[in-house]
């Protein structure tokens, strides 16, 4: 069960900030989330949304373990 975090507008869209979701990869996680909530699925693939696994930004697909932390980071606002 990866720990999944949403930030900024993604959190408002989904209505949650943190959940545990079973998925063996980022790609599978995206499918699970899109199946539940098509709007969220589209937003997660939107322009400028980055993915961090265990606090490091990753590109493309990445395998997940039960202890992985996956964060979806919409375009940053700055401080």
């Amino acid at each position, binding site marked *: 069960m990866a720990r999944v*975090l949403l*930030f*900024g*507008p993604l*959190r*408002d869209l989904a209505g949650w900030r943190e959940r545990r979701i079973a998925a063996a990869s980022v790609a599978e996680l995206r499918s699970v989330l899109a199946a539940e909530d098509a709007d969220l699925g589209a937003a997660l693939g939107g322009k400028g949304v980055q993915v*961090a696994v265990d*606090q490091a930004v990753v590109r493309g697909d990445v395998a997940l373990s039960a202890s992985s932390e996956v*964060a979806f*980071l*919409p*375009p*940053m*606002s*700055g*401080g």
Partner: protein
Amino acid sequence: MSIRLTEAPFDPGALLTEFTKGRTETGAVATFTGIARAEAGATAILELEAYPGFTEAEIGRIADQARERFGLHDLAILHRVGRIAPGEPIVFVAAAAGHRRAAFEACDFLMDYLKSRAPFWKKEHGPDGERWIEPTAQDHADRERWG
């Protein structure tokens, strides 16, 4: 070097007192304090979200660049997160260097990064409801000055 996030209001003066103490070879300390503007009543509350751990680490990478590029002796960054009322400080940056030009430029560089690229998500709660904010074209142009 100190990089911290805080949910509590802070006094930039207390940070400057701490930062300048005991510096006999530094010569120059520049600081910047960003304060939440009321925008003549249009913004009631600013809400800043960070990704704890990740946000400090990303800021730390830029801080390391600044230390190298400007030959800093030290630097400190404190950034508010959570709900911020008008008049409250949002961010404090201090840079210590041998000479003033380096200290000024380092603060300027760090602020341009923090305003446009640092991992924060910012929402304004105003009289017409709430909205997420993105960096302005000016914020991006400011950052691009540094190559």
